[in-house]
């Protein structure tokens, strides 16, 4: 069974610095970090102390609310430092890696012979459960629940995103194992979104035991939330799970090799990346591990993830659990004389026709982090819908979030979106509103009131 979804709305950001399809180096990890901040609403419980020895797969943190959800170390080494922020909030557990990696042996398992309960336990034990994200809200899936279905998007349309066909080319068998395993956790099946642009060549078209959906369109067509919206929208009271193909590979490896092996190809991208390409590394590696890709004397922003949804981690920061992309940008903290009044601003891109960048559709831009204006109230109302291929009213949803009106948030679709789905709305917003933050706050309110 296969289904086709065509999305007309959206926007592919023309930004410079996409990664060439070669793997420049294999990173030997020095210090890696496990970051509880990668997970929404997580209250972490620390399971290790500074100086403790850990293997790849040793639990480092647990979820205080359901303590069988574990977060394990991606490398073997010694716990070097526990970093806390304001009010002693746990930010990072830094682990100094050993020269030779050793893994906890969870034992090879044949997925076909396992029950749903055994699969759940295997994922929980190895620290791969947090790879499963629940919609609504984008939180860690609850092991006690059974989702309506599980969704995977095998392509990313985000700016400069890693090409998963390339990055996961060798992992297909593991991904298949993971799909077989996850299919046992739901009655609705595993739904896999495949990019229409390379439908005929993508290795993911060979996946079995899953419902394939071909999705055509600009960003955010590759967002799993958008795909869910068009395949089977999340209604009140329903739960679906999502998981990224990168995490599927790790899940598959757990069953096939018995190891917690989250190594992955990471795309180092961005206008300020020097000859952008892929590296092989771990989640939690430091920006310093890719220092040949940038000039540290420049005023840069180091983003774990893509430019729309990634996290600003700083020059000393660490890449996130889910991320397989680093974006390097220039900080745009410069003034521009009469910028808004210039007839042409050829070095800048605008999705609107008030500038002339639409005349050069193939041009790519060295974007920086300047806000290009000051914050205002919502004024222009039809720009958001043009980049949101969902049957939603984004401005109404955002206003409901701002008003803390739970009934209206429900009505306008808070169950169907997380920040990444509205990231383009934020990009195009002429009022410079922090739209993703509004959604974050809205979801936080829902979690507080409804759960």
């Amino acid at each position, binding site marked *: 069974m296969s289904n086709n979804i065509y999305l007309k709305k959206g926007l592919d*950001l023309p*930004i410079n610095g996409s990664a060439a399809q070669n793997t420049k180096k294999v990173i030997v990890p020095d210090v890696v970090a496990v970051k509880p901040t990668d997970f929404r609403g997580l209250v972490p419980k620390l399971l290790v102390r500074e100086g403790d020895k850990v293997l790849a797969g040793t639990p480092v943190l647990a979820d205080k609310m359901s303590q069988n959800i574990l977060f394990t170390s991606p490398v073997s080494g010694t716990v070097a430092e526990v970093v806390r922020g304001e009010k002693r909030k746990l930010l990072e557990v830094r682990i100094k890696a050993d020269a030779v990696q050793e893994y906890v042996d969870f034992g090879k398992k044949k997925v076909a012979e396992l029950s749903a309960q055994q699969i759940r336990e295997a994922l929980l034990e190895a620290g791969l459960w947090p790879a499963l994200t629940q919609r609504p809200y984008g939180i860690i899936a609850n092991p006690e629940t059974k989702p309506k279905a599980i969704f995977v998007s095998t392509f990313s349309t985000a*700016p400069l995103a890693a090409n998963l066909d390339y990055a996961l080319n060798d992992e297909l068998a593991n991904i298949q194992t993971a799909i077989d395993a996850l299919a046992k956790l739901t009655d609705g099946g595993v739904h896999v979104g495949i990019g229409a642009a390379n439908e005929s060549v993508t290795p993911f078209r060979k996946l079995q035991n899953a419902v394939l959906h071909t999705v055509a369109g600009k960003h955010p067509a590759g967002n799993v939330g958008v795909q869910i919206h068009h395949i*089977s*929208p999340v*209604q009140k009271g329903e739960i679906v799970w999502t998981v990224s193909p990168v995490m599927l590979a790790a899940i598959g490896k757990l069953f096939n090799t018995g190891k917690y092996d989250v190594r992955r190809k990471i795309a180092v991208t961005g206008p300020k990346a020097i000859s952008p390409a892929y590296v092989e590394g771990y989640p939690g590696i430091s920006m310093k591990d890719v220092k040949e890709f940038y000039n540290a004397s420049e005023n840069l922003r180091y983003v774990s993830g893509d*430019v*729309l*949804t990634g996290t600003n981690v700083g020059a000393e920061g660490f890449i996130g659990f889910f991320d397989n992309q680093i*974006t390097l940008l220039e900080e*745009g*903290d*410069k*003034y*521009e*004389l*009469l*910028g*808004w*009044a210039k007839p042409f601003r050829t070095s*800048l*891109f*605008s*999705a*609107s*026709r*008030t*500038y002339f960048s639409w005349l050069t559709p193939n041009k790519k831009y060295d*974007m*920086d*982090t*300047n*806000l*290009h*204006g*000051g*914050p*205002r*109230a*919502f*004024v*222009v*109302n039809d720009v958001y819908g043009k980049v949101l291929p969902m*049957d939603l*009213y984004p*401005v109404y949803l955002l206003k409901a979030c701002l008003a803390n009106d739970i009934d209206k948030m429900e009505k*306008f679709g808070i169950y169907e979106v997380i*920040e990444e789905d509205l*990231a383009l709305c*934020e*990009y*195009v*917003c*002429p*009022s*410079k509103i*922090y*739209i*993703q*933050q509004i959604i974050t706050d809205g979801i936080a309110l829902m979690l507080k009131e409804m759960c």
Partner: protein
Amino acid sequence: MNGLRNFVDKIKPTFEKGGKLGFLHSTFDAFETFLFVPNTVTRRGAHVRDCVDLKRVMIMVVIALVPAMLFGIWNTGYQHSLAFGLDWGFWNIVLYGLVKVLPLYIVSYLVGLGIEFVSAQIQGHEVNEGYLVSGMLIPLIVPVDVPLWMLAIAVAFAVIIGKEVFGGTGMNIWNPALLTRAFLFFSYPSKMSGDTVWTGGVERFVNEGVAFQAGNGLVDGFSGATPLANASMQGLQNSGYSLWDMILGTIPGSVGETSVIAILIGAVILLWTGVASWKIMASSVLGGLAIGYLGYAVGATDLPGYYQLVMGGFLFGTVFMATDPVTSAQTECGKWIYGFLVGALAVTVRLWNPGYPEGMMLAILLMNTFAPLIDHYVIEGSIKRRAKKVKTA
């Protein structure tokens, strides 16, 4: 550029909190951001942003209004020259137009922006660009001879009661420029309607016997009436207005509303840049035509429907006022309904209400009021449809 930047950086501390002129912070900020796109960087969420901002959007509308404004200035002089039989050349005409229209602009911007600056300062906001457009619109939709003090009061009313009490640009229910006009219309009807107010200098000449340049007094047969006042084939013929005059705009009327061509140039700019909604413009024209032809069919008027588009403020309202993104309908489907009703109501008032020869202002203000209701039902409908779709799936 660096010199200017250094100067701004040097005086900046004076205007910051605790500085000597800290109470002018918003004002300083407005001028600074006018000169320089600020160096603010994104803090959360998307790390890069589109280079369009509200200033750019608003300046597009202002540019779109320039043809109507220029024509309005010329036409003001031209109508005066015509009324008094002066046979002025181009520069005289323009000079007279400038003398009459510039003060309207000065008052509009001084009063409106003044209030915006003060209220931004009180609320600690940045000054919003919204009034750049309102201030540009207001002089174009009033009779050229409206006394400046009246204009000042009306602008103050519209900005304070119509906008700031709701929270400023983006929060207002009614279009501030139209509110200004409505205030004038209902408070000082003698200055806003009749046959003598539309041509510069005529009112004063009639009352006081003097004018800027009166020549030999008003020419024989001068009526000063707008086409709307005599909206019938016979009436138009008597006043000597051909369809072409109305398209060109060489007729009496509010300053900027007369020329179809100038307004259409603006419409092209707005649609091209995507700043205004083509749906609202198209549906408003459709609505106007529909009722125009209905009236023609049932004998309420002997003018074919398309005449309604070129007379009075219909087109100006359709292009520049009904499309205000804040006060119009927000949903795409709602825009069709809203626009259609604006056009339909405007012509309905014209044809069936003898008290009001022009209905555009009231139609838009009324539909501004009902736009949220239209949106409400459009959204309810969409949510119900979606719920049904899910159930059957």
